[in-house]
């Protein structure tokens, strides 16, 4: 039993304790002060997605490709008895198309739309007060900047927050 083994045991004990505490802790809602975000990467750049703008996070979903003049459309996917188009978020943000995006989020709203991307990093909760509206730090492209509604400093970097509704609106506008 080495130091790593001891650390693993300590981690398991901490997890067990945390799991038990989750059922014993008092319910304290601080949702008004907390913003749930998903840390992702598009291309090589870090971004954030607001959890309030998405209806679900999925991984390794089978996307059925359909012929379409829209280059950003990857196909359609079946979710909970409904079909939703899936777009390449990197292509929509003017990045090079992703080779095989594994992750996908479903945008909230009356018309479900999926956005696929390569890497999901973590679910983070930040205080709303830490959100900043500096639009020019990470997203340099004009197209990208129009889909960014703010920035948040998390995981050691200043991450732009992608405005999903803006992206959906752009797609709708392009189709109409």
């Amino acid at each position: 039993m080495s130091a790593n083994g001891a650390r693993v045991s300590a981690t398991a004990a901490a997890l067990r304790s945390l799991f038990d505490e989750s059922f014993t802790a008092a319910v304290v809602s601080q949702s008004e002060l907390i913003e749930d975000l998903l840390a992702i990467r598009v291309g090589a750049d870090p971004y954030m997605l607001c959890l309030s703008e998405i209806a679900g996070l999925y991984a390794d979903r089978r996307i059925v490709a359909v012929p379409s003049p829209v280059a950003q459309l990857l196909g359609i996917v079946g979710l909970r008895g409904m079909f939703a188009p899936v777009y390449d978020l990197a292509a929509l943000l003017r990045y090079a198309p992703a080779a095989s995006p594994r992750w996908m989020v479903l945008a909230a709203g009356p018309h479900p739309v999926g956005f696929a991307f390569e890497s999901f990093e973590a679910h983070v909760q930040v205080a709303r007060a830490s959100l900043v509206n500096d639009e020019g730090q990470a997203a340099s492209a004009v197209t990208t900047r129009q889909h960014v509604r703010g920035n948040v400093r998390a995981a050691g970097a200043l991450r732009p927050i992608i405005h999903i509704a803006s992206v959906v609106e752009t797609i709708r506008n392009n189709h109409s």
Partner: protein
Amino acid sequence: MIDNWTFGKKIAAGFALSFVLLLAIGAVSYRSISKLTDTSQWVTHTHEVLEHIAAVLSLLKDAETGQRGYIITGDVAFLEPYNAGSGEVLGVVKELRTLTADNPNQQKRLDAVERLIPAKLGELKQAVDLRRAGDVDGVTKLVRSGEGKRTMDDLRHILDQMDAEERGLLQQRDQEGASAAGGAKSIIIFGTLLCLLLVTAAGALITSSLGRQIGSSVGQIQSSSSELQAAANQQATATKEQATAMSEISTTISELLATSRQIAESAQRVAQIAGQTASAARSGDATVSTAHDSITTIRRQVDLIVNHMLELGKKSQQIGAVLDIVAELAEQTNILAINATIEAAGASEAGKRFAVVAEEIRKLADRVAGSTKEIRGLIEDVRSSVNTTIMTTEGGSKSVDAGASQFSQVAAAFGEIAGLVSTTTEAAREIELSTKQQATAVEQVNVAITSAAQATKETEASSGQTLQTAVELGGLSRALLRIVRPQAAHAVFATHASAE
């Protein structure tokens, strides 16, 4: 041709010539002297015969004289000559016959004399007897008869003949003796002169020839003596150098002897060390064999370790697979938690409580995911360590194999070393023995060198003697040349003196 004769041959020839001449002269002289002696003897003989003839006549005269005296006087004293003469005359005649035995004429005359003498003596005796008887008349008658006188006359005549013949012979022999003496004188004189002449000539010839030869030889001897002197000087110098070299050689041989003894001692020590090394090599061989067995055991243990490590690697892979499932479950849990949070956000107040649980589940999933990453890292470390251990172990196994092979080689090398050490031991012992023999030989050489050095010293002394002898030989040659060729010797002396 005579120049080619040897010294002894020339001397012998000269002496032979002188000997022949002396022999010839001696022979001729001997012959002449013998002849002269014979002649002298014959002369003496003739004189003796003449004396006997004269004695016979004298005795007859004495007898007749005594007879006459007695007849006349009647004195017996006068008979003494008669008695002597009559008694001795026949003996003298007999001697005379002996002396003239080689002369027939004289023998015939003696026959007559021997007939007449008894008659004469008878007549005388008759007269004496008559006188003694006193018959003077008868005596006178007898005398007057003349018988006695006739007999005496015959005897005188015969004796005269004998005397004459003897005197003739005497004269003849005197002449022969004179002739022989003259011949002998002539032979002696002329032979001596001839001999002197020939001997002188031969002497001059031999002297001249020998003088040339001896002079030439003496010259050569002088030259040779000079060369011998120079050679003796060189030999003396060389002998001194040789003596010095012998001394150095003797010193070197002594050092060599000491070195040989040291080598022998070193070889003995080498043999002892080689023996110890052989023992150590045999011990090392046994140790290597034991080590080889140990390495074989280690090889088996290493194989077991490798197998266990491979098994550990497989188990790690299985753990990794399980961990993938855990990670996937954590990820799915996280997704479910996120989705639950999303759903809870739209579920009013009840959803908030559910969102808390979902948040806790998500945190738990995050922690599980983090722990899974750590475990994956640990497993990767374990796998890497296992792989490294396997590679290291396989390397160790190969090293063990190489070590086993090397140990086999070392064992073989030890065996070879043992054999070589045995050979070395034998060689060292042979070296020791050879070196001892060499030391003995060197001692013998040292003794021989010492003897040679002694001989060199003796040679040096002999060289000095040779030099002295060469000098004396030169002096002797000059003296000899002075004896045989004074002029040449004078010239040689002048040259030698100027050279000196």
